[in-house]
């Protein structure tokens, strides 16, 4: 008896919803920690305002573009694993990034970075990756043009070593970023060993 009343009521509710066009798709946003544990920030915005998400597994649920709930909720990791099971399983391995450092103004590797090369080649062999990007960078000593040239030479030196070790050239993508993307931001003209580098990404 009770059940049939409930059934009628819920059918009516569904019908009403359909009639007034409120069958809007429901959107849920959940902030997740990065694989390295870092938690950044997500801001969810619509016509009703904005809501920041800053805690691990903090979540906001919305139905309409002109409504925002007054509070977010914090899910458990187990809830997230259930809600996003198939997307979590489809996540590709995040690319591995290696940094190789160079002597000032040259494309000569520092001794320590030279020693890192066998390890990188071993990793490429084990992953069998055919999508490797090599980008050269410089510090802010010298002109923009000179630094683009130096950072290109740095990238090419590494590419050559990988090709010599047997990697097909078509699996490499070589780029020169000059002084535009420093790891450590410095004023112009500052020598900075951490910026004289090649970033090698194995995807």
């Amino acid at each position, binding site marked *: 008896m009770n059940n049939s009343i409930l059934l009628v009521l819920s059918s009516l509710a569904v019908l009403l919803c359909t009639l007034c066009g409120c*069958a*809007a*798709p*429901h*959107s*849920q*946003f*959940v*902030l*997740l*920690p*990065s*694989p390295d544990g*870092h*938690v*950044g*920030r*997500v*801001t*969810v*915005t*619509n016509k009703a305002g904005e809501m920041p998400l800053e805690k691990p597994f903090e979540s906001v649920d*919305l*139905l*309409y*573009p002109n409504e*925002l709930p007054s509070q977010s909720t914090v899910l458990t990791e187990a809830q*997230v694993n259930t*809600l*996003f*099971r*198939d*997307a*979590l*399983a*489809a*996540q*590709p*391995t*995040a*690319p591995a*990034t290696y940094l190789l450092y160079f002597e000032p103004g040259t494309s000569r590797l520092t001794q320590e970075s030279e020693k890192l090369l066998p390890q990188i080649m071993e990793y490429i062999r084990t992953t069998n990756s*055919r*999508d490797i*990007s090599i980008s050269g960078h410089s510090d802010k000593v010298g002109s923009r043009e000179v630094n*683009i040239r130096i950072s290109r030479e740095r990238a090419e030196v590494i590419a050559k070593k990988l090709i010599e070790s047997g990697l097909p050239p078509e699996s490499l993508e070589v*780029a020169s*970023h*000059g002084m*535009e*993307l420093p790891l450590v931001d410095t004023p112009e003209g500052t020598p900075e060993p951490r910026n004289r580098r090649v970033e090698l*990404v194995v*995807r």
Partner: protein
Amino acid sequence: MYRGCLLLVFLFVFSASWAIAADGDAVGRIRTVSGDAHILRGADKLAAKPEMRIVRGDTLLTGKQGSIGIVFIDNSTLALGSNSIFKLARYDFNVLEKKAGFVGQIRRGSLIYLSGLIAKMNADAVRFETPAAVAGVRGTRLAIKVEGDDNE
């Protein structure tokens, strides 16, 4: 008359393929695929396979048991769960020109995004749009679920 038509057809086909080529720079690659998964590119519907290139403007579709995982050139990754419709509306990544932007639109289904260099270059550059809101992403991982009408 016939020749004129042929020329027109030729010009049309040529300009269409030129447009695809000009727009065809790969911005990512498919890494994982399971079940029913497709790429809508212009009028083409391509079955998704590992190592396939993704270009801006692509719409990705997954079916009931489908999923796709992508690695983008800025090292960000995107995974789509089953029953998803996702469009890569914008993707700009040019370090020297300082151009960085990512706009993804999810109409249905679920996704997990792990940010990469685009988010590092410009803190406001990564955006995900759903029918109810827009999420701006600053250096992190984000999961989104949109429960839509399956018959859309």
